[in-house]
């Protein structure tokens, strides 16, 4: 009976958590019921349609108005099947939504178009997070602008991230690997670009990653490149092509016309100000109020790194 469950899992992302296996088994069961009911209904439809074709214009058809037992059966049996799948669904849902108490807690912040993560010891990362294998992890999620949704297909779990309050989600990854994270609630232009990766690694690698400083003995330009790949790639390109924001190649030192009509040359102060307060001086032709502020989210080292990186793109 569960053969179709295994065939279905061929079209599903890998089952990386125990909950994912339970969800897939339930989905397999539902697929089997659906297959049977489709075969019954559509098969019956086609069989009757072919068998009872019209021979002459005044064929006599029997006056069958109803049949109580048949009608009872085809109401009660679906009702039982629906109740069974409801209860099974409830059990799986309860498992999905009750986080074990000893879980490793990580703060997740959704912001128009990237995800940032903060661990208890102050270590932060963007667009990617590291998690030890076989460890219960509980994400406490908030949004600083609109509704997003943290969706990990491989863990079969998803939870909206609602501004103004916190929501949570938990998982226990059993297999090491990189797992894709999507934003699943429409949140504007780069909704499809708002992705992240969960790296499930061994405990030692995780402890090492957690402890070290991500920019240890990296030149400022490389720090800037890391900041770019994790925070800015969704809206800025490394060429001179405009995505949502300006392309960075050759922008440094260029003279730009602002919305107010005055001119400005792109220097360190303008870049720093645009990072901390993007709507202060908006260049003509670019949408106002789209770039979020990074004040309080980027350290001094990361901001100066970003500036150096932009400067290096001639």
């Amino acid at each position: 009976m569960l053969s179709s469950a295994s065939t279905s899992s061929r079209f599903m992302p890998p089952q990386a958590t125990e909950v994912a296996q339970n969800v897939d088994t339930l989905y397999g069961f539902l697929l089997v019921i659906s297959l049977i009911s489709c075969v019954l209904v559509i098969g019956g439809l086609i069989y009757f349609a072919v068998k009872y074709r019209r021979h002459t214009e005044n064929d006599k058809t029997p006056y069958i108005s109803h049949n109580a037992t048949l009608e009872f059966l085809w109401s009660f049996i679906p009702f039982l099947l629906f109740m069974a799948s409801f209860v099974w669904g409830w059990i799986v849902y309860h498992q999905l939504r009750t986080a074990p108490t000893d879980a490793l807690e990580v703060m997740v912040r959704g912001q128009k178009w990237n995800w940032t993560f903060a661990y208890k010891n102050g270590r932060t990362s963007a667009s990617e997070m590291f998690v030890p294998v076989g460890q219960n992890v509980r994400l406490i999620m908030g949004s600083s602008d609109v509704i997003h949704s943290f969706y990990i297909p491989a863990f079969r779990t998803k939870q909206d991230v609602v501004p103004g309050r916190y929501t949570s989600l938990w998982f226990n990854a059993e297999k090491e690997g990189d797992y894709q994270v999507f934003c699943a609630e429409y949140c504007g232009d780069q909704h499809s670009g708002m992705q992240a990766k969960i790296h499930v690694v061994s405990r030692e690698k995780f402890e090492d990653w957690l402890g070290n400083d991500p920019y240890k003995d990296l030149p400022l330009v490389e720090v800037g490149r890391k900041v770019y790949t994790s925070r800015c790639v969704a809206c800025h390109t490394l060429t001179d092509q405009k995505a949502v924001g300006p392309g960075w190649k050759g922008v440094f030192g260029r003279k730009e016309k602002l919305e107010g009509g005055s001119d400005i040359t792109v220097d360190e102060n303008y870049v720093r100000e645009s990072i901390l307060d993007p709507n202060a001086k908006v260049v003509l032709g670019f949408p106002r109020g789209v770039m979020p502020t990074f004040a309080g989210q980027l350290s001094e080292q990361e901001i100066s790194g970003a500036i150096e990186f932009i400067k290096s793109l001639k």
Partner: protein
Amino acid sequence: MDDQQHHHMIPLKIYIQVLVLLLVLTAITVAAAQVNFGPWNTVIAMAIASIKAGFVLAFFMHLKYDDKLYRVCFGTAIFFLIVLYAFSKLDIVTRIVVEPFQ
């Protein structure tokens, strides 16, 4: 062709009595609001308002003497509003508040 049978008419006296009753009830609800019964204030105010509404519906809007269908209409509207309130309230009350750390 016009089989004009006279529709039910409420005597003038009853109209006047209903208005007086409504004004008295308004006075009561205003007086009751001055006294602080704590959460009971809301219940009293809504009860009196519902009584007043009942009188307006029954007499001024002829619901008491009219086709029962109109009562069904009014009742269904109220019923589905209660459903909207009940399910939304259930969600708000049973939400688990998630606390951040740090």
